[in-house]
């Protein structure tokens, strides 16, 4: 277990899908290997481990999402095995509170033999759903891209790549890829799309406003979706979103449901900052130039993420379909149980 936490601290993962997959496999191992008597104990074990994982890498919200999702799965399976409907586990009606057969302490404490197997099955099902999420999103591509469109995207998102490649099978369109300084992932995406014979043009971040008047749609991927419908996306996404808004160009965000998290945006700085991650300033101003006598007192910033407010987003496309950002908060209640909001 410690090795995994060390890997998290050292950021040895490759994107949010990879991280989510690793976390949920880790939790599955945990469920199968530890000894627990009933559901409440199991949830306690998962919660404890979850706290450690989140503390190891607080800026990656996917970890917390996965932990809470597993907790929700456990609750659902428990309730289903007891024979009651799934809605029962969620609703907190006044009647239920006054006349419930179990008190708060007794809830989830009945020991059920089949709980372990059913929970393991449900978690595997969820992993399969996550695997298929990219394909589900890509399958909706043909509904949103018409021919001869000019589409703008920034950075490299595996979801956007699959989306565009799927649409290119049937339609001819043009893609403009913004570099995404200072990580320049846009170059990788452009090379991959061009290899699939999609007409691609690379532009610098500075040319976004100039090009926006000719763009029909902006399609971006995101790192996380926040509880208010806002985004935690790659650095540079906010100015792309603003430029799109100024030119009345729709902004479509692609993201699987596991990216949806309970947190809101907070711009607390200093040691408690969890929203943004500052990467090495070497990428912005390399040590060779900055080390000279002139520039030794310059503060150089290299943020990796940007907050995009929900007013700038037109549509979210996830594996369960398309939604407006104002609806995202409702989807939270389907994914996570309200008692799990605080780990």
């Amino acid at each position: 277990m410690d090795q995994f936490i060390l890997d998290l601290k050292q950021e040895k993962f490759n994107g949010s899908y990879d991280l989510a997959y690793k976390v949920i496999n880790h939790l599955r191992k945990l469920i199968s290997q530890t000894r627990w008597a009933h559901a409440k104990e199991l949830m306690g074990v998962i919660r404890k481990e979850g706290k450690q994982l989140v503390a190891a890498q607080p800026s990656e919200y996917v970890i917390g999402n996965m932990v809470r999702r597993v907790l929700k799965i456990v609750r659902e399976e428990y309730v289903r095995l007891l024979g009651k409907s799934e809605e029962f586990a969620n609703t907190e009606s006044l009647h239920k509170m006054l006349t419930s057969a179990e008190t708060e302490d007794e809830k989830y404490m009945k020991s059920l033999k089949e709980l372990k197997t059913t929970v393991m099955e449900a978690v595997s099902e969820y992993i399969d759903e996550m695997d298929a999420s990219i394909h589900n999103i890509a399958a909706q591509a043909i509904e949103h891209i018409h021919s001869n469109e000019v589409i703008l995207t920034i950075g490299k998102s595996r979801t956007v790549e699959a989306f565009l490649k799927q649409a290119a099978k049937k339609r001819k369109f043009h893609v403009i890829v913004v570099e995404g300084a200072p990580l320049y992932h846009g170059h990788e995406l452009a090379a991959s799309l061009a290899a699939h014979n999609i007409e691609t043009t690379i532009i610098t971040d500075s040319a976004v406003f100039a090009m926006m008047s000719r763009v029909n749609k902006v399609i971006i991927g995101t790192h996380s979706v926040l509880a208010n419908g806002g985004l935690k996306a790659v650095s540079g996404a906010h100015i792309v979103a603003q430029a799109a808004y100024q030119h009345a160009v729709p902004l479509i965000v692609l993201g699987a449901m596991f990216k949806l998290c309970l947190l809101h945006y907070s711009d607390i700085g200093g040691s408690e900052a969890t929203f943004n991650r500052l990467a090495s300033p070497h990428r912005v101003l390399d040590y060779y130039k900055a080390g000279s006598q002139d520039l030794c007192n310059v503060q150089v910033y290299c943020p990796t993420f940007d907050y995009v407010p929900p007013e700038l987003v037109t549509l979210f496309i996830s594996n369960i379909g398309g939604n407006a950002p104002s609806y995202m908060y409702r989807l939270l209640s389907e994914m996570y149980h309200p008692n799990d909001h605080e780990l």
Partner: protein
Amino acid sequence: MQSADVGDPSKANKAVKKSVKKERRKEKISNKGDSSKSQQQQSVQQFDGAVAPKSKAELRAERRAKQEAERAAKTLKKEEQAKSNKAKGPQVSANLQVDDPKVQKKAAKKLEKQQVPQRTEGHKKVTLFSHLHQYERSVSITKDIGFGSTGIHPAIIKLGLQYAEGIITGSNARCAALMNAVCQLIADYETPPQKELARHLESKLKPAISFLNQCRPLSVSMGSAIKYMKIKITKIPSDMSDDKAKQELISDLQAFVHVNITLAKQAISNSACSKISDGDVVMIYGSSSLIIHVLNAAFKTGRNFRVVVVDGRPKLSGIRALRHLCRAGIKCSYVLISAVSYIMPEVTKVFLGAHGLLSNGYVMGSVGTSLVSMAAKARGVPVIVCCEAYKFCERVQTDSFVNNEIGDPRDLLATDGSSSGPLIKEDAYKNLDSLKVLHLTYDVTPPQYMAMVVTELGMLPCTSVPVVLRVRSFDT
């Protein structure tokens, strides 16, 4: 617009020359007829015994009358031509019609006549910009230039190379360097016999300007300077000696640089300083000599402020600004343009330099200026543009596509040194047919994002550009 000016009179001249030639041919034929008649007359008269020399004088008088009639007809024709050309309206420069093969053929012929080498277009062109030149910096344009007496002056060749290689950048620097080189050209100029200084000097300047245009498209500041030059040259009185005319011209051009660049800089600094207060966090984009001067001046008056320098690829000119400011002792931060939203909550004011101001109030600046202004406006941060009055131009433009400078696309790709890293390598770029790379140089910012423009004539709204242009045209 410059090449349009060059085109008009030469076209008119050609047409007039043709008509004159025709007339002369007709006259020769009629003269021959006349002379034969007069000879007959003479012979008849001699035969008759009438006075022969008198008829010669008569003939001379007749010829003089014909020549005067010819001259009157020529001036009439010229006026008509000028009128008809005015009716056609302003002509679009050939630099904006690269996708029209006829226009490009004409332009190529003109360059050949002026002995100016022409650049070859790049291999992979972005289709959205197929109406503009898209060059690649592969072969030096001056490889085949000779140093003959009819060629281009070496100072101009040196200047062209400095432009093409990016050694001289920034509109003020380019304009000042241009005036310097032209002063050298004028100093070394010798009027050939039988020719007038005013007309021949202009014909010497035209190939020089075409060459500089081929090295790097003319900036708005250079265009303004060239217009001033041409006006000064045409105003030289014909009775002035060549030496005196050259001296006056050189001092006029130097005065242009002094008044419009140096003095304007000081005037703008004085008024813009009043806009910076203690505790301000000023954001600048890229490197503008004027903005650096303003910030230095404000710092010297003892104001306490710090500067955030935003930079854009591939030029990364912000590093130059950073050096200047750090040397003066100003506290600086540095970010790339993708981090503008991250740093904007701290910023209180944005100061931007401009490449040129268009007549409809739009500001033409280095690419990324519009993005910074938009981001600032969205957070309610005032954007102040500082621009000298000589950079105002009569052009109108609403987007950044119709008129722009496309740089070498390989500037965005990986340099030869770095083997790793996510940037695409050049061979990969060449092999992928569907992949294009766009390197824009300028972009156009709408006036609603800007609070004001500070010029040496005062602090104006962006929409006052045509007013200033009118005032300046009455002055010169």
